């Protein structure tokens, strides 16, 4: 059963703020996840660069 106040209303309820909040949370969460993916990817690339340098040093020391 709907609450009485909703049945008696003549116009749609003013819930624009809640819609903005809902869409903001949805878009924000997806954006945060994408940022997290990019950040983890960059960290791994940095790790690879460091590993390349270490390998070069090891090869230099072995010569």
């Amino acid at each position, binding site marked *: *059963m*709907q*609450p009485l106040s*909703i049945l008696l*209303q003549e116009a*749609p*309820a*003013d*819930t*624009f703020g*809640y*819609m903005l*909040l*809902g*869409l903001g*949370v*949805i878009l924000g*969460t*997806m954006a945060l*996840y*994408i940022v997290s*993916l990019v950040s*983890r*990817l960059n960290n*791994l*690339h940095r*790790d*690879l660069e460091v*590993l390349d340098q*270490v*390998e070069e040093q*090891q090869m230099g020391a072995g010569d």
Partner: protein
Amino acid sequence: MDPMPKTLKWLNRITVVLFLIALYLTLFYAPREAVMGDVQRVFYFHVSAGWVGGLAFLVTAIAGGVYLARRNSRWDRLALASVEVGMVFAFINIVSGSIWARPVWNTWWTWDPRLVTATIMELLYLAYLMLRQGIEDPDRRARFGAIYGIAAFISVPITFFSIRFFRTIHPVVIGSSDPTAQGTFDMTSRMLMAFMFSLLTFTFIYITLLWHRIRLSNLRERVEGRKLDVLSA
């Protein structure tokens, strides 16, 4: 790292375009619901996020089954990637539902079967990620992940059917609602269009993010391999 495949580049572009169209359909094409007002527009992405969560966990269960049969780590990486993406969307589903509920049910949270089962589902997969991290041996970790992923999937149909089997105030938009449901509405053709398009768009978002997440796992495996090489040299 290998350059991004052309197909993935195109998928990125298509997904962004689809998302912009879905946003337009949600905000401007679909009419304002007569009773709830604008907050009902959250419904299009709320349900789509729930759909992607369920789909992602299904993919995890299937990938787990294939891993157990073939013992190829590629399937374990797919299962893990799908859990992570699925959790993001299950979280969006729960939080956006809570925001919708505030003006419609007059509360952010209630101990309704749907809300409880959806939260348990999310927590089960959070436990999947946490427990995996505690296992050092990659084969054991993958085996555990596969079995857990298959077992945890039972939470998905329970969540889906909870509003159809139990007495609940959560509306059933497709099918018939419990008479005590609050926030039920009949979809107009424009609403249906926005809804179906959002489902399609979120499926594309899932596939795109999943692909990126798998590439991340592949790169991580390569880095771990290189680290071992450097240490053993």
